[in-house]
């Protein structure tokens, strides 16, 4: 029997990034979906052969423009563990504050994109307007809106003054209030429920079977969050991962909304706990060239990222590898897309919070 084949992507307005799906449809029911990626593959892991390890961090930052800070931090953490560099305390705290701010930024961005995918333009506008607040904080503290370039192996390049930190917390509280109004819309709007509730259900067993990570797994009830490992000071503050059990698109929205609130709360705690004062050391410069290997794991907004770094004592690393969260979530996405409606395809793709540039590097 004849079936409609819709070429979804590479250029498709629902996704800013090129992801290709051949959707085989009956009416609008997706019978089969054949994916292809590779439109953003740059080969940046191989740039270890062209860029010295000291500057490789800037390349790693540009794996993805949304979790740029986390990528930079992850690279530095990996190198620091190989080279046994002790990072000054304040720098460690500053890093995770920035990391949580960047999580808020990423989630707000995603909530907006998600809203746009199901045709709620106004909500998109509101989410992105709130996000601009975060970008202002970033630009003020790091000098860049999107790409921050403050992480260096051994510490961070810039300090945030204590007064500024307090201002940031106040600003985030304000943002939190504005966010609640938006969150109410996401949670209560019947038209959003129509599009999200019960759509793209990933059961807990399935989430485990396809090795889903991050909010994708947490929305299906899998208690998995690399922050629990505590290596990044998360053991010094109160932290418990956000879990939802429904496993549908709405649950993934809710997980991210709750994580926005949680991050604001975490930043509160962090600012309270961190060592105060002006002129505290921020950076311990590493000596010599690295040698050795490490797997470093980190919880990004999209989920767990794994970095592998192998160094052989030269200025150039032997191997750098990032297994990004979207890379791990793509099998889940392919699984969910089959059997849904064409109109659900954008929702499902977006609720895994795809970052194709992360996936393909």
């Amino acid at each position: 029997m004849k079936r409609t084949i819709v070429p979804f992507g590479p250029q498709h307005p629902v996704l800013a990034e090129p992801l290709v799906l051949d959707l085989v449809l009956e009416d609008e029911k997706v019978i089969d979906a054949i994916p292809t990626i590779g439109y953003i593959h740059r080969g940046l892991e191989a740039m270890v052969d062209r860029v010295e390890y000291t500057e490789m961090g800037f390349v790693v930052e540009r794996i993805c423009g949304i979790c740029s800070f986390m990528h930079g931090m992850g690279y530095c953490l990996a190198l620091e563990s190989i080279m046994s560099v002790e990072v000054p305390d304040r720098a460690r705290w500053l890093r995770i504050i920035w990391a949580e701010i960047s999580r808020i930024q990423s989630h707000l961005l995603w909530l907006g994109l998600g809203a746009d995918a199901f045709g709620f333009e106004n909500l998109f506008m509101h989410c992105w307007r709130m996000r601009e607040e975060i970008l202002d904080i970033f630009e003020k503290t790091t000098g860049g809106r999107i790409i921050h370039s403050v992480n260096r192996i051994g510490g961070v390049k810039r300090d945030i003054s204590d007064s500024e930190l307090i201002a940031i917390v106040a600003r985030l509280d304000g943002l939190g209030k504005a966010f609640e109004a938006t969150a109410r819309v996401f949670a209560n709007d019947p038209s959003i429920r129509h599009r999200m509730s019960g759509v793209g259900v990933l059961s807990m067993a399935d989430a485990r079977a396809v090795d889903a990570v991050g909010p994708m797994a947490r929305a299906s009830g899998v208690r998995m969050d690399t922050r629990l490992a505590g290596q990044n000071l998360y053991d010094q503050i109160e932290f418990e991962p956000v879990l939802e059990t429904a496993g549908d698109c709405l649950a993934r929205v809710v997980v991210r909304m709750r994580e926005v609130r949680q991050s604001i709360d975490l930043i509160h705690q962090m600012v309270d706990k961190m060592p105060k004062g002006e002129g505290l050391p921020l950076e311990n410069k590493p000596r010599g060239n690295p040698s050795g290997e490490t797997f470093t794991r980190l919880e990004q907004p999209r989920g767990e990222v794994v970095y592998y770094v192998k160094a052989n004592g030269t200025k150039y690393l032997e191997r750098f590898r990032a297994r990004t969260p979207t890379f791990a979530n793509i099998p889940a996405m392919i699984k969910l897309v089959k059997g849904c409606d064409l109109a659900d395809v954008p929702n499902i793709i977006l609720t895994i919070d795809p970052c194709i540039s992360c996936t393909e590097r």
Partner: protein
Amino acid sequence: MSSLIVFLVAFPLVVGGLLLGIRNSKLRNVIVVLAGLVVAGASIVTAVTFGNGDAVFFGLPNGLTLGRSLLVLEIAIAVFVVAVSIQHRRILAPVLVLGQVAVSVYLELSGKMPELEPGRLFWFDRLSMIMVLIIGIIGTLICIHSLGYMRDYHRSSPLIKGRRTVFFCLLFVFLGSMFGLVVSNYLPLMLIFWEVTTLCSFLLIGYTRTKETIGYAFDALNMNMLGGLGFSVAILMLAGQPDGLDLAKLTAGPATAALLPALALLCLAGLTKAAQMPFSRWLLGAMYAPSPTSALLHSSTMVKAGVFLLLRLSPAIAGSSLGTLVAFVGMLTFLFVSLVGVTEQNTKKVLAYSTIGSLGLIVGCAGLGSPELIWVGVMIIIFHALAKGLLFLVVGTIENRLYSKDMENFDTLLSRLPLVSALALTGIAGMFIAPFGVVVAKWTAIRAFLEIPGWQGAALLVIMAFGTSLTLFYWGKLLIKVLSMRSVSEYERSVEKRISRFEWLAEISLASGVIGVAAFLGVISEQVVGPYALATFKGTSQSFLHIEPVILATMIAALLFLPALALWASRHEGYNTADFYAAGRPVTSGGVMGMALGATQTVTLRNYYLDGVVNGKLVFRVGTIACGVLLVTLIAVGMVAR
């Protein structure tokens, strides 16, 4: 005068018999074409001779009498049916036909049969005239079309044993008996023709003699025999009434309560033949027969016999609860089959659903009965006969070129078979595009429904609104497929050249008919249909067309201008079939897209069938049950009214 009618009926029968013996196809072509011309000519002559207006009645010429020939014919039919049924081990049909014979024999032997008024055997009025023209002209065109079609049909399906002699014989017999049916005034005479059409359709549906088609043929036979049985029981009941068997007198005005049971049974007969729910199944099965059969069954014969009878009965049943029930059976059938139609992928079946729906509308009009509604019913008969006849023939032609009846395979037809698709467009336009007849008829029907008081009026309006929109959906889908374009290869372009002249002649004539009738809508309404409707219901003079004919003509001209513009545009540069949006992927002019994982594939598109919203099978079942209940009520009402 009466000899003309006898000629009209007898000539096709004789030709049919002659064709049975002719195996040379060239000779057959000549005979069919010549005989067809004679039939068409005779129908026109008849129409012209009688067509000055009022009803005329006459008997057999030169003192011929029927004698017991009707009974003999009936027994002959019964013997044939029993024989065939035994051959195929069917039980229902012989039971029904024997019941029928039993009724007739009882009538004959008991002597209850009233004396026949010899001068009132036949009845010719404007409705008969319209029917005779439809049968004579459209029927002939279909016969001629079959000459080309059957050649290709047997070429494309070599496994089917060619029995073309029988086929052409049946076509002509069919025409002859239809002529007889529409001019009969004496009900037992009409019954004979009625049964002959049943038999012809049975044989035509079973033409290919596969297990499947024989099953469908028996479906048709069983249901129509049931109607036939109703018909003969009605005759039995009417035989005791004064002037009961004289159709014209019977339907001269509202029927007395005593007549209602018999009328209910006649309505049952009409509904079976018109394939209304719950009897719609046989018409769908008939789709497996060669396309000219479908064309004949749908446009000018068979199902039209059913609505013809109901239109005849309209003045008698209108206003009674019987009439209302009949009307609702028709209107609900229209609604339900339109709903089923949107889920159907087989083009011939879509056409069949559309036919059942249109007939439902006619039945609705006949049941409600008012000058306006009778006008609507007759108008739909005319437009539907032309458009649907054309569509079936076109689909037959397409089927023989593309080897598929699936609507989905008709895509890019405009590029592959441009002339054929132009004809298809004309046919589809005739069925549902605004200034063409069926839509004008529906519009007038809505206006008439506004005048019907009580919940019935509201219900009819709602049914009409939804049913019409549903037809829009399936016709729209078909149009999208027919109108789509892509670059085609030289070979694909050459396919159209192999269509025979017979097919072109028939299809182009019918297409001109669709446009011509729409263009002369005003004249037809004023001169023929309007006077008929007024005469039937003794209404005061009124205009049925509530629009300036100028506007209609302008719209038709505009609609005809658009294809011309397309033709003009296609000769110009500036278009590129490889330029469609495919999300940035490479595309070529044949519609080949770059796909995932480096593959390539031709664009394939499937229409929407409302999966998950409308369950066609379920709707059909619900409709069958609902209309079945109505039908039982209908007969019961008739009985109780007594």
